[in-house]
């Protein structure tokens, strides 16, 4: 049986003829049969003495979609029925009938009918009514004798939501259980239909009352904040966010995401003072919604917040502020905060900081390509590499070097990238090592002797991972430290740790898993990162420090080992 059929787009000018379907007499038709009904036949069904209730309900539903003014009288007749389902069917049709006379028809019925029949009509007046209905609804809303009608009238006044309707609801506040919710939702509808300014006073009135349910109070709080000028709204908001009532705090947090774009909340003088007095949990949540809102001024605010002294108690807030800065497009400032939090005694925060740094460093392939990264390894063969003394091969897209007990590596060996010498660059590469493996990514090295210049060091157990190695200075670039290199003499190496070396290793590496190195070489400044976290920062002031050279992958002399690299890419700086 088909539900709705109409070949014309305009429902009123119904001149097309439709075939009668078996639908009108309550039996199913085969799916796919083209069928239609005329309004006339539907009306006939409504009036028929032999049609079943099912037929009439179905006919009324159809009239709800295609009925014209012609359908109104027959439907109104059904409003009188002592059967609730026929009354509902009639309203189903009348509520969506676009004729401007529907309200009058419903009003008339509301005066005539009593009991449950009237309740339904009152409901429909809410969905169809205008100020014209308000006097009747106002009379019924406080009716203690007919509670059902009173509830329906209150609800309908809320839906009509004109100033007159709101005025009619006001006397019920504090008396009728749903009057407050009705008033609130009416204010919402008025604000949406006309403007926030028009609804402002109603929100304010509700907000001032003590005898309303707390959900309504929170809705009123939201309404007041959104519809009043900044001078009024902000102090109210500040009071709410500072409240000991958790519902006020929730509402205040949520409404931040709805602040008008030009409301520079965080730029106001009071905001910082208010923020600092909030409990940590609220500070964190507020930091987040400010970030979600994309409040540009919040950036300045968070920076000021982060400039305050660090204490163990405010770590979580600092984390939230840093995370907010990331959302606001200022990751550099956040990185420093996260780096410090790696050393937090609270494992949850340290872990979150680690994940945040990992997330910050992550770029999609598309983003990398856009940034100018080019691949060093085609994933298939060694055509882009030379040397390597036969240790290297490619399998499953992985560049592999393997030595065994029968065939050990007795001399350091380098696989050299054919792409030429690089000076200033950023290189990213994933690596995986067996427990006894020792490797490294050499750069700015001499072609004829690759065991020169810098190396991003690595070994299977992790001891050397994150260190910047130099054959002349060995493990000069300590993991977790800033290093200044002047020369080999005393005082020539100045190492300033920024985090405990062993602690950092725990954050950046798990034995036997894939990890990613990032090498940034610019002028005399080298930085190393593993899995997004900075491990070393070295400035080389020696006059003969290498400015450019080849890039290699090292196979170190030693016990049997397996070394794997994949996803190697580089961009010039």
């Amino acid at each position, binding site marked *: *049986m*088909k*539900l*709705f*059929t*109409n070949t014309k*787009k305009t429902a009123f000018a119904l001149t097309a003829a439709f075939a009668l379907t078996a639908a009108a007499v309550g039996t199913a038709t085969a*799916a796919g049969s083209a069928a239609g009904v005329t309004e006339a036949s539907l009306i006939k069904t409504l009036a028929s003495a032999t049609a079943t209730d*099912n037929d009439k*309900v*179905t006919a009324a539903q159809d009239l709800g*979609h*295609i009925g014209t003014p012609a359908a109104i009288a027959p439907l109104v007749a059904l409003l009188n029925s002592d059967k*609730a*389902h026929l*009354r*509902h069917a009639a309203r*189903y049709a009348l*509520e*969506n009938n*676009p004729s401007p006379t529907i309200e009058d028809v419903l009003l008339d019925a509301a005066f005539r009918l009593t009991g*449950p029949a009237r*309740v*339904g009509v009152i*409901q429909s007046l809410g969905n169809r009514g205008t100020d014209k209905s308000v006097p009747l609804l106002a009379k019924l809303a406080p009716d203690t004798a007919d509670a059902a009608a009173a*509830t*329906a009238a209150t609800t309908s006044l809320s839906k009509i939501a004109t100033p007159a309707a709101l005025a009619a609801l006001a006397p019920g506040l504090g008396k009728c*259980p*749903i009057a407050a*919710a009705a008033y609130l939702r009416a204010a*919402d509808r008025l604000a949406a239909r006309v403007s926030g300014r028009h609804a402002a006073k109603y929100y304010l009135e509700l907000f001032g009352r003590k005898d309303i*349910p707390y*959900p309504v109070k929170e*809705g009123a709080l*939201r*309404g007041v904040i959104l519809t009043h000028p900044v001078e009024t709204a902000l102090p109210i908001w500040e009071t709410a966010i500072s409240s000991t*009532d*958790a*519902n006020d705090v929730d509402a205040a*947090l949520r*409404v931040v995401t*709805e602040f008008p774009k030009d409301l520079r909340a965080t730029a106001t003088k009071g905001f910082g003072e208010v923020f600092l007095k909030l*409990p*940590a*949990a609220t500070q*964190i*949540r507020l930091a*987040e919604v400010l970030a979600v809102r994309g409040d540009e001024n919040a950036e300045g605010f968070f920076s000021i917040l982060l400039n305050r002294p660090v204490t163990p108690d405010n770590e*979580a807030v600092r984390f939230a502020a840093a995370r907010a800065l990331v959302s606001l497009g200022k990751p550099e400032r956040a990185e420093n905060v996260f780096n410090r939090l790696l050393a937090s005694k609270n494992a*949850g*925060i340290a*872990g*979150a900081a680690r*994940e945040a740094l990992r*997330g910050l460093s*992550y770029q*999609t*392939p598309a*983003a990398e390509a856009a940034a100018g990264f080019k691949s060093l390894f085609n994933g298939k063969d060694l055509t882009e590499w030379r040397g390597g003394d036969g240790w290297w091969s490619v399998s499953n*897209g992985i560049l592999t070097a393997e030595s065994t007990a029968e065939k050990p590596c007795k001399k350091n060996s380098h696989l050299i990238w054919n792409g030429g010498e690089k000076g200033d660059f950023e290189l990213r590469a994933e690596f995986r090592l067996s427990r006894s493996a020792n490797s490294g990514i050499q750069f700015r090295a001499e072609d004829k002797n690759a065991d020169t210049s810098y190396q991003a060091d690595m070994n299977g157990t992790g001891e050397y991972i994150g260190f910047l190695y130099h054959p002349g200075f060995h493990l000069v670039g300590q993991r977790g430290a800033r290093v200044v290199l002047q020369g080999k003499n005393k005082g020539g190496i100045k190492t300033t740790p920024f985090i405990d070396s062993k602690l950092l290793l725990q954050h950046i590496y798990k034995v036997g898993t894939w990890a990613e190195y990032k090498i940034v070489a610019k002028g005399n400044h080298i930085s190393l990162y593993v899995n997004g976290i900075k491990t070393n920062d070295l400035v080389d002031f020696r006059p003969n420090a290498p400015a450019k050279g080849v890039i290699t992958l090292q196979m170190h002399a030693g016990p049997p080992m397996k070394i794997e690299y994949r996803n190697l890419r580089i961009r010039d700086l």
Partner: protein
Amino acid sequence: MLHTNTPDSDAGLNRRRFLKQAALATSALALPAFVPAAALGRDGKIAPSNRIVMGGVGFGGRGSYVIGQWFLRQPEVQFVAACDVRRDRRNALKKRIDQHNKNADCKAYVDMDEVFARPDIDAVVVVTGDRLHATAAIRAMRAGKDIYSEKPATMTIAEGQELVRTAKTYARVYQAGMQRLTERNFVFCEELVRSGRLGEVKTVHAHHWLPGFGVNIRNPWKPEEKYDPAEIDWDRWLGPCPWRPYNKHYVRGGWYGEHDFSTGVIGGWGSHTFASCQAAVDLGDTSPVHYPYVKSTTADGLTMTFANGTKMRSLGQDTWKDAAGKTHKWRGSCAVRYIGTEGWCATGDGYSAPDLSNPALLNDLNKVVQNYLLRTGRELDHVRNFLSCVKSRRETAANPTLTHRTMSTVHCANLAQWLKRDLTWDPIKEEFVNDPEANRCRSRAVREGWQIV
């Protein structure tokens, strides 16, 4: 039949407010929501102030799983109310809860408003039949409760609009049961689209099951049967829907094939797959602008077009060839396929990993998903996402806007089939273009006594 909101007339604070104040004072909530619970060093016991007190409404087949297993096993959740219009089911739910709580404190209810009015309840989960989802959600939110509602979340476009407005006004946390939005394979596919790894994605395919009854489901009433009012409250079962005589067919799942109680096959499946698709191409705050009438009883092949040109196709099965000429098919329900200029991905229920035009992308699955979780603060568990958001007040994955808009897609698609003509939709004004009849179908009148403020 009257549904009123009792005022909060307690002299002191209600338990919920006290709970939250206690939480504000402790540092337990001081960590960002995405810090894994394990890192908080819990000893396994949950302090009373950290509990989320809940009520369950609807304990049929789906409810048995969602409430009886999924919600009940969450450590911080405590159920105190069991509601169902059927006596056997509310008793079964109470029994299940009592068993879990090891006491008999859970109260049984027929009227969901009584559950919503309880000051000690923080959140409710609604697993009734489809016809009541939005009604229950709006009532619960108006009473100040957070809500997890099963899908399809709305019966009409108007219900969806009201859902969004209510959640905003009352600052409530709402999650609809489109759980694939927080499942690993589906999340990975979304991120593949977002990251540009598939090129530009302008076509998405959404699965729908093809049952016998198709999309047109207005059937004659079944014969009236007697029933015991103590066993089932038929009037309350119907709720705002048009009355019809009782027949056990409806309450035994037959409602799914009835226009008055269900959004049919497009709703049943589209509620999931349209949500997955629209989320993946970041069109979760709108609906397509064009819906064709498809001369098929099940609307198989229905291709909808968004304002930006993206096409979403609803299919009973998807079959395609990869670059090597090998044929692929969907091999699970609620499947999706996202097709870009540089590749495609497909996933569905039961897949161990998505099918990809470039299988090497799977190497990055964990990294990509980790990055997503970090960025959104979500977790790969729909119920945990809801509960986290109840605490943090963040937006859930299946939030009101995404839910309303993807259900609007369902309703528009249904209407095109019912009216047997192509429809054009204006997602800004939320109305059909040049089609008063279709516009008259955006809402349905409710029965006496069921109108909500």
